C-alpha cells in the first residue's frame, strides 16, 4: 500500500491499517527467515546471526532497524506466552458500522490490552486479540471496550489449541 514516506510514524487509524513502506531485498529476506528462528541468547547475538549469513554485526543491526522503521517487521524481541505467566489471551470481534469505523479503530487500539487488531470482511468486521495479566481481566477489558465504543464485543476464547506456528517464509 502506498504511503507518503514522510510521516515518521504511520497513523494507526487509517481504513486499511499499518502498511510496509518498502519491499525487503534478498538479503533482508534471508535475515527475516533467520530471525524467525531462535535468536541466540549469547553476549553478541547480532554478530552470531551475521556470521551465519555472511554479514557484519553492524549490518545486521542496521538492516533490522530499517526493517522495523519501514514496518516490514512489526516487532523484534521475545514473544511472551502470557498464559504461562498467569494471564490470558482472547480473540474478540465487533460489528462496526462503516460510518463509525475510524472512531472505533482509534478507541479500540488505545487499549494497551489490544495486542493485535485486524479488519476482516464479514458482518463481524473487526477482530482483535486481548492480552491481560489475569484471566478475569479479559471480560473486564471487553466491558470497558463496549463502554468506550457503544458496540457489543463477542469473545472467542480458545478451548483447544491444535497448532500454532508463527513463522512465514519471506
Amino acid at each position: 500500500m502506498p504511503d507518503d514516506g514522510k510521516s515518521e510514524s504511520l497513523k494507526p487509524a487509517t481504513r486499511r491499517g499499518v502498511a510496509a513502506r518498502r519491499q525487503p531485498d534478498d538479503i533482508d529476506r534471508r535475515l527475516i527467515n533467520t530471525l524467525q528462528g531462535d535468536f541466540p541468547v549469547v553476549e553478541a547475538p547480532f554478530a552470531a546471526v551475521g556470521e551465519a549469513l555472511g554479514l557484519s554485526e553492524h549490518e545486521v543491526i542496521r538492516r533490522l532497524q530499517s526493517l522495523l522503521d519501514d514496518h516490514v517487521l512489526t516487532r523484534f524481541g521475545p514473544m511472551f506466552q502470557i498464559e504461562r505467566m498467569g494471564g490470558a489471551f482472547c480473540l474478540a470481534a465487533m460489528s462496526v458500522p462503516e460510518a463509525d469505523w475510524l472512531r472505533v479503530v482509534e478507541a479500540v487500539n488505545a487499549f494497551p490490552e489490544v495486542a493485535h487488531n485486524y479488519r476482516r470482511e464479514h458482518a463481524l468486521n473487526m477482530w482483535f486479540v486481548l492480552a491481560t495479566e489475569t484471566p478475569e481481566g479479559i471480560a473486564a477489558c471487553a466491558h470497558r471496550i463496549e463502554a468506550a465504543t457503544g458496540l457489543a464485543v463477542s469473545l472467542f476464547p480458545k478451548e483447544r489449541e491444535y497448532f500454532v506456528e508463527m513463522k512465514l517464509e519471506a
Partner: protein
Amino acid sequence: MTSVDALRAPATAGDDLAAELDRRIVLTTQGGLPLVPRPYAEVAERVGSDEATVRSRLAAMLADGRIRRIGAVPNHYAIGYTANGMSVWDIDEHLIDAVGERVGALPFVTHCYRRPRHLPDWPYNLFAMVHAANREAALARVAEIAALIEREFRGACRRRDVLFSAGILKKTGLRIGG
C-alpha cells in the same frame, strides 16, 4: 492450586526475587529487544541486573514456555502473503478434536483452534488461519481443507466461511502494565 497459580506464587524468597526480576525483564523487552551489539547487557542495565543473569532468566523463560521464542515478527503483507484468510468451520461436536488435530497438521495452516460458537449468528467452532500469496491460492487451500474433512470425517462439517483480512490495524504484541 492450578499450574498457573503455581507460577504466580513462588515458594521461597529466592523465587520471589527471580519472579520480580522476570517481571521487570518482561516489561523492558515486551516492546522489543534493544538493537545494540550487546542487547542483553543493555536489558540488564535497565532492570538493574547483570548480563549473565538476564540471559539465564531468558533461557529459563524459554525453557518453561513463558517465552515462545525470541525473534522477528514480519508484517505478512510485506513479505508476499497478501491473502490472510481466517477459515471458520462448523464441525460436529463429537469429531471436533480429531478434525482440529488433522487440519492443524496441514503445512499451510499457521494457527488452528477450537473456539465457542455464538449462535445463531456464529455457528463456527473451528478456526484455521491460512496465509497465501493471493486470494485464489488461499481459497484453494480452504477447499483442500474442506475436501480433506469430507474425505476423512464424512458429514462432520456443516458450514464454513473465510474471513479475509482487509488490513492490519494494530500489531504491537502484548503490553502488560508497570
